């Protein structure tokens, strides 16, 4: 294919990606070093109230935003260097907390709290998703052919459901005296509230994520299981391998590329955990990096959006995802070079 034809085919897609993905990245990068604020001026205001004999007048100095002819506030954009990053990271508090050796104090700072949750969420759910997905795939592969269709149908439901709704549906089972909380209270005989402390919410979030992603892993593993080489399996049987040994030495190595694929996708998706925070309404207890940026961007009561802090926190989020992906990407590159020679 000539370069010109190739460019014509790929052009629109590349253009959209450059305009809406690459360009925003650059602008976020620049924004993170800037602050846009309304220009304020101090004016003397004399207010008079009618009084007996003479009016009572008071003068005070007020700070008001400067308005232009159209009545809009005039804003200025200043370069502030790393100021926004400092605001987000709060390194002075962080180091003093490290100096005290106090984990709780570090967790008081939003960014470090979000980072801690995002990382533990990503790394803890990863083995669970792969394990549960593999277990379901093996069990379905074991089942009679006629019930496989309906089982796949039911399994797809948690995967396809809107993430916010999915986490809400679990939230409603546990909220207040929801049906499952009531059941646990009956068993344990004590009052349980699942949404009053961070660790129970976090537990439910892990559960939700595994519930949501395991079907994806299952479908892929199930497809992989169909292509396991029967001859290798049979020779393993002849060699006297037990069921467990066959799983470990024949099936899992066969599925290894798929496991890596799922791990990669899962790392990307989990790192941007966000919908759970909305669904479980956990912002008071548990927040994630992406939610932190979202929160900076949501207008506050005065209608201001903290864009520069949002940009700084999203640049920091970016650095994290680059670090996470550097190893798998280097591998792909080496494979590509290997195949070229």
């Amino acid at each position: 294919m000539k370069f010109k034809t190739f460019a014509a085919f790929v052009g629109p897609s590349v253009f959209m990606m450059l305009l809406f993905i690459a360009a925003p990245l650059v602008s976020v990068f620049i924004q993170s070093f800037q602050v846009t604020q309304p220009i304020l001026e101090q004016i003397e205001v004399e207010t008079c109230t009618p009084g007996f004999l003479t009016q009572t007048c008071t003068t005070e100095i007020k700070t008001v935003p400067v308005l232009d002819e159209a009545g809009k506030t005039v804003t200025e954009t200043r370069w502030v260097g790393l100021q926004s990053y400092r605001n987000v990271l709060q390194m002075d508090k962080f180091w003093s907390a490290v100096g005290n050796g106090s984990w709780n104090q570090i967790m008081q700072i939003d960014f470090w709290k979000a980072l801690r949750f995002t990382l533990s969420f990503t790394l803890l759910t990863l083995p669970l998703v792969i394990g549960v997905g593999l277990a379901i795939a093996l069990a379905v592969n074991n089942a009679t052919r006629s019930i496989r269709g309906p089982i796949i149908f039911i399994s797809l439901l948690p995967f396809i459901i809107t993430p916010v709704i999915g986490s809400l549906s679990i939230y409603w089972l546990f909220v207040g005296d929801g049906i499952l909380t009531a059941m646990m209270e009956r068993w344990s005989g004590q009052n349980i509230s699942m949404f009053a402390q961070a660790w129970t919410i976090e537990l439910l979030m892990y559960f939700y994520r595994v519930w949501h992603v395991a079907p994806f892993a299952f479908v892929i593993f199930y497809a992989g299981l169909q292509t396991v080489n029967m001859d290798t399996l049979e020779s393993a049987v002849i060699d006297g391998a037990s069921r467990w040994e066959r799983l470990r030495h024949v099936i899992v190595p066969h599925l290894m590329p798929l496991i890596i694929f799922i791990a990669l996708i899962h790392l990307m998706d989990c790192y941007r955990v966000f919908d759970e925070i909305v669904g479980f309404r956990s912002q008071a207890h548990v927040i994630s990096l992406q939610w932190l940026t979202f929160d900076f961007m949501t207008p506050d009561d005065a209608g201001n959006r903290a864009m520069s802090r949002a940009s700084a926190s999203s640049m920091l989020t970016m650095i994290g995802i680059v670090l996470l992906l550097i190893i798998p990407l280097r591998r792909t590159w080496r494979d590509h070079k290997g195949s070229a020679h």
Partner: protein
Amino acid sequence: MSTPRAMRQSFALRFSSGAFLAFWCLLAAFPIFWIAVMSFKSPVDAFADSAWDVITGPATRANGDGLSIIDIALGVVVLFFAIRWAFTKLPALVRQYCPPGLIVLGWIVGALVYAITFVLIFFGLLPIILGALNSLLGPLGTPVLGMTTQHYIAVWGENEFYRNFLNSMLVTAGVVTISLTVGTLAGYGLARSGSDLAFWLLILALIFRALPHSVLVAGYLPVFINSSEILAPIFGEGAPTLYGQPWAVIAVLVSINQPFTIWMLRSFFQNIPAELDEAARVDGCSHFQAFRRVIMPVMWPGVITTGLFSFLLGYNDFLVTALLLDAQNQTMVPAIAGYFNRETTTTDQVEAVAAAVSITAPLFLLVMVFQRQIVSGLTAGAVKG
């Protein structure tokens, strides 16, 4: 025996694998099933302590809303025939009345007509007939299962949820059509070109796929809010403010979706033998003609599958739509967040549940109809990528 003896499994293993599977199915379906049940009950029942009360709904029944045995029996029969008819007669009808080139359009129209007829019969005609029957039959006609549609009426009627529904449909339809048009071209180009540039584009797309969406939205927001000033030199007075515009959100979602789309379509196109378009080229077609005449007729399975996933992305998105759309143009998923702020009484809570079920229902239908395509799409991405 088809399986060799050594491969046969002990009873204990078969039993535990079956039990595990049953447990998983219960776990997978229960939360969704349960919110569906809750949405039909009065608030007292929906948040009752005992599961049995939630299912049978005594308080709902006491309010006079309920189904008798006759209602249930007749409802199940009608439902059964409706579903059977949809899978046996409907495809034939669509094929008969639709001009051959427009089969996709024919299916959309057919599905719409079917849905409207079903709603009319099931929620219009059936209650009238059953009301008469119930009063005639005495004991058989007394309600046994509490059930009310009042929350749905409140959500769709009073709260004007249909506006959000229409916005959602607009956004998802736009996302699916545009990302497929742009994506098929790019996917084909990437699949047929073995150059280093193609490889680097794919890697770049992979990196773009990993980006958290909030990073991108942080880039859009200031530009979108001030876009009328920024674009004024180009468009003059009529320069639009992009913030709150559904089509701006469509463009954003299409671009976010593009990396995934081109990866998936590329793997589908690689499965179409290259000899096919080479033959067309030998016969004197240009690359574009070959694409249009030879590839397009055989690419539909891949396009449908990719379209499904684009649909899911547009439909399920919360973050982008919540930040870039204003209240009038809000789609369904962010709109449900509006219920949180209002959710003070238990009635509001059950209304939120009903809204959630309303959002889930189309997805449920989607899995039912397109299960095979979804599975093939999931595996195609993995096995090739």
